Structure formats: structure tokens, C-alpha cells
């Protein structure tokens, strides 16, 4: 594999990051593993004693697990759409962040579905989904969609990695033999010949074209698990696009935070530049406005129409004695503040953007909670139950332990993958820092296109 000087430099710079697994990395890993072990114990309790150990009961049948599921799998859809668009439109400044978006895609599509499994009362009967599938059920659509998407997104990440695997293979790095071998296998004999190049580009383009609508579909299907019921707060025609936008929005937030973390950790200031934060900040701002618009439409139509059952949910959401403060806080931090921080030039700085992105992620998680739990706490018939846990949902420690185990596995997988491949994709990299290089890049792009034709 031949690299230009800029790409070579990027590789040499990142080489130590994938060559050794340092003390700090081990400490991180062990820390994450400990969290996962605590979650494992909670899972053991849940399986041994039944779902009684969770805070879920007959009215609120879904809780933290489904909130985490929606949130984490949303990140995946966002990562796929972002990297797909950056790829298709040959956005040269976007090259350094494509890999990060793709890793996020794959990691979250692995971790997310674990949470839907945690909601299942009989894990021993999981195969029933395949031996007795019932196509009318949105749950079946979701199973099919996620499995399709899982394969698609892994392929998409892999295609984007082939060139880099060839680089790692040829670099004679100071790594164990098995890794050398693995890179060789994964590079599937890629040498950078004209025909290989052509095939790879066509495959990548095709996958990008497939993965974008696929993400939108899968995200909508997820929303329909709720939208297809008759419940107020869920039964809404805008639920599909609302979920797509929410996913994209929180995904951009996680991408910004990941970019900041890796920039700090690996000193990648030359690749994750201030410009990247600004541009992703703009994306975040636009998405915040869109998401805010959808949220407002949801609340406003329900409130104005004021049908009784709808009003019951709206009252719950806005009553300060119930979820009022959470609703206010989540919408303020999750929608309004990011818009202002990015809009004001003085605060349009990486650290500020990262900070609001981080807070926005938490707010959007809370928003998901506010979509799920208050609706379930508002059945059509009066609950008239003296058992508090049946009336009001409160997550128990096993649910929290498993939630943190999920976050830990997300971060652990991220760590492991970023120790196996460079965070900045070297072979795709285009030097946009100098005018001359930029022109060169466009020329190269043209050359690719001619070859394609």
C-alpha cells in the first residue's frame, strides 16, 4: 500500500497508539470490566429471581432498559448516517472523523440490543422469535431491521477499513504475530491496484447508499414499537421522524465528545481541529432546532387538543410535582442551550461545544425516559393500586448496575477497537490544511472518478 507523505505522517503519528496497550489502557479496561462484572451479577439476580428485582411492574412494564436501548441504538443510526453522508459527498474535512462515527455505529449496534434482551422475561425462549415469527408485530420488524442493520453497518465499517488494514499489514509494526496475521487476513490481499481500488469504491458507495435509508427505516421501526400502540404520548404520526432526528442529534453529541476525548488522549489536535468542532457544532445546532420543533409539535398538539387521556400525560410531564422539572431541564439543556452556545461566536469553542454536547447527551437520555415512563404511568383506567411500585416506576440498583455496565461495555469496545485500528483513517486522509494540498486532493478525487467511469 502506497501512502502519500501526509498520510504516512498521519500513520507514523498514530502508530504507537495501536502498537502498545499501555498501563493506562489496562487500568481503564480493568475498571470497565469491574463495572461489567457488577452488571453481570445484577443480570444473574434478574435471571435467578425473575424481573421482580427490577422496578418494572404491571403498569410500567418497560423502564431503564428500554430507555437505554433507544438511546444507544440511536447513536448507531446517527453514526451510520453521518459517515454515509460524509463518504458519499466526498467531504474532505470529514475524512478524519468518519472512522470515529463508524466505530460508534458498530459499538452501539452491539451494545444497544443487549438492553432489549434485558427486558425479555424468558431469555431461554429467544429462539421463538425465529421459529414462531409473527410478521404483523412491530417487534418482529425491529428484530429483522436490527439484524439487517447489524450486518450492514459492520460491512460498512469493514469496507472502510480494508485499505488501512493493508497499511498496517505492510508497516512491519512491533506487534505480536497473531495481530500481524489478523491484519493480513483482514486486508484480503488489497494492494491498491486500479481494479481493486475500483471495486472497493463501488462497494463502499453502494453500502453508503444502502446504509443511510436503512438507518432511517430501522430508527422509524424502533419508534413504531411505541407509535403503533394506542397510548397517548406514543401514538403519534410524527414518531418515526422524531426518533430519526433524536437519534441523529444525540449521535452528533456523542461524536463531539468522542472527538474531544481522543484529541486529548492521543494529542490529535492536527486532525480533530477546531474546525471540526465548529462544523459538528453547526450540525448540532441545526439538529437541536429540528428536534426542538418536533418536541414542541408533540407537546403543543396534545395540549391544545386536550383530549382527556392526552391531557393526563401532558399534565404529568409538566406538573412540577411529577416530571415538570425534568421536562423543563431536559428541554432547556437538550435543546435551547446547545443552540445558543453554538450560535454565539464567543462560545463557539471546542471546550464549550464539547461541554454542551456532553450535557445534551444526558438531557436526551432523560428525554427518552420522559417519552417512555410517564406514558406507561398513565393507563386509560384508574390504577387504584395501593402498591406504590405498581403506580410509580423507580429504577432499582440492578437496573442501574446494568445501565452502567452497558456504558462500560460501550467504552470498553471503543477502547479495544481504537487500539486495533487508528482512530484517524490514514489511507483516506486528505490534507486540507494548505491550499495546494486541497487542490491536489480534488485532482486525486477526479482521477478516482475517471477510473470509475
Amino acid at each position, binding site marked *: 500500500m502506497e501512502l502519500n507523505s501526509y498520510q504516512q505522517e498521519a500513520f507514523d503519528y498514530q502508530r504507537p497508539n495501536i502498537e502498545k496497550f499501555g498501563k493506562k489502557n489496562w487500568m481503564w479496561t480493568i475498571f470497565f470490566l469491574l463495572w461489567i462484572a457488577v452488571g453481570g451479577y445484577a443480570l444473574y439476580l434478574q435471571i435467578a429471581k425473575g424481573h421482580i428485582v427490577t422496578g418494572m*411492574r*404491571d403498569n410500567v412494564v418497560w423502564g431503564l432498559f428500554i430507555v437505554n436501548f433507544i438511546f444507544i441504538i440511536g447513536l448507531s443510526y446517527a453514526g451510520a448516517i453521518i459517515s454515509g453522508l460524509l463518504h458519499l459527498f466526498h467531504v474532505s474535512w470529514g475524512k478524519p472523523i468518519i472512522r470515529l462515527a463508524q466505530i460508534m455505529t458498530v459499538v452501539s449496534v452491539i451494545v444497544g440490543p443487549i438492553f432489549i434482551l434485558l427486558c*425479555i422475561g424468558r431469555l431461554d425462549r429467544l429462539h421463538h422469535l425465529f421459529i414462531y415469527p409473527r410478521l404483523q408485530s412491530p*417487534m418482529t420488524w425491529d428484530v429483522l431491521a436490527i439484524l439487517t442493520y447489524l450486518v450492514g453497518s459492520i460491512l460498512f465499517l469493514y469496507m472502510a477499513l480494508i485499505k488501512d488494514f493493508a497499511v498496517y499489514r505492510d508497516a512491519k509494526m512491533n506487534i505480536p504475530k497473531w495481530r500481524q496475521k489478523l491484519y493480513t487476513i483482514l486486508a484480503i490481499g488489497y494492494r491498491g491496484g486500479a481494479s481493486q481500488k475500483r471495486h472497493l469504491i463501488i462497494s463502499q458507495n453502494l453500502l453508503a447508499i444502502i446504509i443511510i435509508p436503512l438507518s432511517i427505516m430501522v430508527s422509524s421501526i424502533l419508534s413504531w414499537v411505541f407509535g403503533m*400502540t*394506542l397510548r397517548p404520548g406514543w401514538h403519534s404520526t410524527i414518531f418515526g421522524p422524531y426518533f430519526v432526528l433524536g437519534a441523529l442529534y444525540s449521535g452528533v453529541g456523542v461524536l463531539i465528545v468522542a472527538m474531544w476525548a481522543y484529541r486529548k488522549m492521543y494529542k490529535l489536535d492536527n486532525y480533530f481541529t477546531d474546525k471540526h468542532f465548529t462544523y459538528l457544532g453547526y450540525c448540532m445546532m441545526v439538529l437541536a432546532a429540528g428536534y426542538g420543533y418536533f418536541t414542541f409539535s408533540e407537546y403543543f398538539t396534545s395540549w391544545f387538543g386536550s383530549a382527556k387521556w392526552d391531557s393526563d400525560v401532558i399534565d404529568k410531564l409538566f406538573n412540577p410535582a411529577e416530571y415538570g422539572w425534568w421536562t423543563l431541564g431536559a428541554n432547556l439543556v437538550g435543546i435551547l442551550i446547545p443552540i445558543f452556545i453554538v450560535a454565539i461566536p464567543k462560545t463557539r469553542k471546542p471546550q464549550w461545544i464539547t461541554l454542551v454536547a456532553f450535557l445534551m447527551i444526558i438531557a436526551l437520555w432523560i428525554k427518552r425516559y420522559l417519552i417512555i415512563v410517564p406514558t406507561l404511568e398513565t393507563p*386509560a383506567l384508574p390504577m*387504584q393500586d395501593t402498591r406504590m411500585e405498581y403506580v410509580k416506576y423507580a429504577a432499582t440498583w440492578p437496573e442501574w448496575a446494568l445501565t452502567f455496565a452497558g456504558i462500560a461495555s460501550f467504552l470498553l469496545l471503543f477502547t479495544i477497537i481504537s487500539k486495533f485500528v487508528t482512530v484517524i483513517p490514514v489511507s483516506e486522509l486528505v490534507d486540507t490544511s494548505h491550499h495546494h494540498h486541497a487542490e491536489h486532493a480534488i485532482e486525486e478525487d477526479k482521477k478516482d472518478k475517471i477510473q470509475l467511469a
Partner: protein
Amino acid sequence: MVQEEINDKSRRSFLKTAAVATVVTAACGSAACSCSSAKTDTAAEGGKVRLLSPDGEIVEIDSAYLNHQEHMAIVSKLEQRQGIAGKRFVMVVDLALCKNARKCITACQKWHYRPEETEWLSVKLMKDSEKAAPYWFPKQCFHCDNPPCVKVCPVDATFKRQDGLVLIDNDRCIGCKFCMAACPYSTRVFNWDEPEMPIDIRNLKYSAETGLPAKVGTVEKCDFCPDRSREGLLPPCVEACPNGVFYFGDENEDTVTNGSETVSFSQLIKDRAAYRFLEELGTKPRVYYLPPKDRQFPVERGYDDLPGNIKDRFKDIMEPNKKS
């Protein structure tokens, strides 16, 4: 074939125990009664159970003989899914007669071996608007003709039968609870932990028509007791009601009965202006309600003598000025 074998076997065991069983049923009036004593007295299968004979004597019987003959009518999986040919089960609930005696609830729990907290059938206190008078509202599964729960089940564990019933196959249910989220009437309950059952019930072969034995991590609900219909019996809630609130019957025959009187279903819902709960949701329930007009009991009759923990449920409506 297999089914015939099972039936045959149960028939034989029935004959074998017939002599004792008649004593038992005669003594207690119902199997539910004998079973409840079995629950308290037997530690393990084969242990001795003490029962009251018709002469007022205490007799000791091996619990192995106490096979619950009413629950014996186990039909094949296919029949459980198809339903009883030619029937369209329907229920009419007369709200003017309900005084929250709660006999239906206990009878249901006894028949289905469910603990006190698990209510497949519950009685709500409804107050439709601020000025409206509160009334008691017994509610079981509506066995909707357009059931939102069945639509969403990913594994076909809950299904609609040709006789109108919506049942659950808990050998198949994966416990995703989607049906619970989808049911607008809060009908379904989940086995959050291992349900406690007498050992002989636990060892029964599962039937969707009886919901026995209950299984952890699965969803269950009111089933309109089709096993009893097969025997020509009414559901226990209908039988137990002291006021004849529940009329149960067959839409095809156009007859419903509350145990003491049998009337024309179409005439009853016409004369009494029956309605279906939340008709606007389009679920097409198979349970009709007769509005609480000319009520037989003041609503307090169902409140004043309730045990404290149940009384608390209705406090907000009955004593709105007293904040708990």
C-alpha cells in the same frame, strides 16, 4: 392420538379416584374448596389431606387422589388455538347491580390459583366527570375482536380464537411485555417472579385454556374460563357474584345468563342501552356494559366495610377531602 391418550389417562384416573372424589366434592361443594385445603395441608405429593365428609366427619385422604377434575379438560394445542366450534362468547356486565362485593375476584383467584395481589378481574371505582356519581366497574379481559395485544405479539403467543376468546400460550410467550404496553385496558399481568402454586398444579401439563400452571417471566390474563365452558359450566366470577352482575353466554345462540336468569343477549343490550368501554379506540370489545341507571345499592355499600388496604384504593374518590 396423543390427545386421546391423555384424555383416556385422565378418564381412567378419574374413574379410579371417583369414589373418593365424589366424597370430596360432595363434602366441599367445589373442587376449588378442596384444593385450597390441599394447599394448606400438603407438603408434598402423596401426603395426607384432611377433609370434611358429608356426615361432618374429618376424613384423611391421600392428596394424590385429589386431582382437580374440573381442570382435567385439557384439549390439544391446536384445539386450544382454534376454540370451541360454533361459539362466540360474550359478556354483559350490569353496572346497576354491582356493589363491589368482590366475590368475583376471590372466586377467580381461587379457580386460577392466583395470590390475592393478582387480579385478572378487578373492580374499579369510576367517576366519569367531576359532577358525575361514582359507580363500581368490574373489569376483566374484553376479548376484543380487534385486539391490540394480539397485533403486537412477536411470537404468536397470544392469539384470537374463532369462539371470540383471546388467550395466551405460556409455553411460547417470551415475556417481552409488548402486549401489556399495547392493551389500553391494563388487563394483562406479568409473573415478575416464580408464581407460588400447589405442587400438583405445578405438575399439570400446561393448557392455554386454564393458564395452569402459571410460569415465571410470562404474561397472563382473564381467559373467560373456556375449560369450564367445555364442561357446560359458567366462569367462577359469574357464579360467585351474589347480585348477578355478569351475564355470560354465546352471541351465536343470542343468550346470556347470570346463573339465575337467562335472557336474550340482543334484547338485553337493546333494552338497557349497553355500551362498550372506550369504543372510540376501535378495539371492538366482547364485553358490554349496562349503564349504572336505577342502581340497586348506594356506592358506599361497596366501600364502608372494605379492609383498609383495599379501601385505600378508592379513598381519592370516596373521601376527596381527606388527603392520605
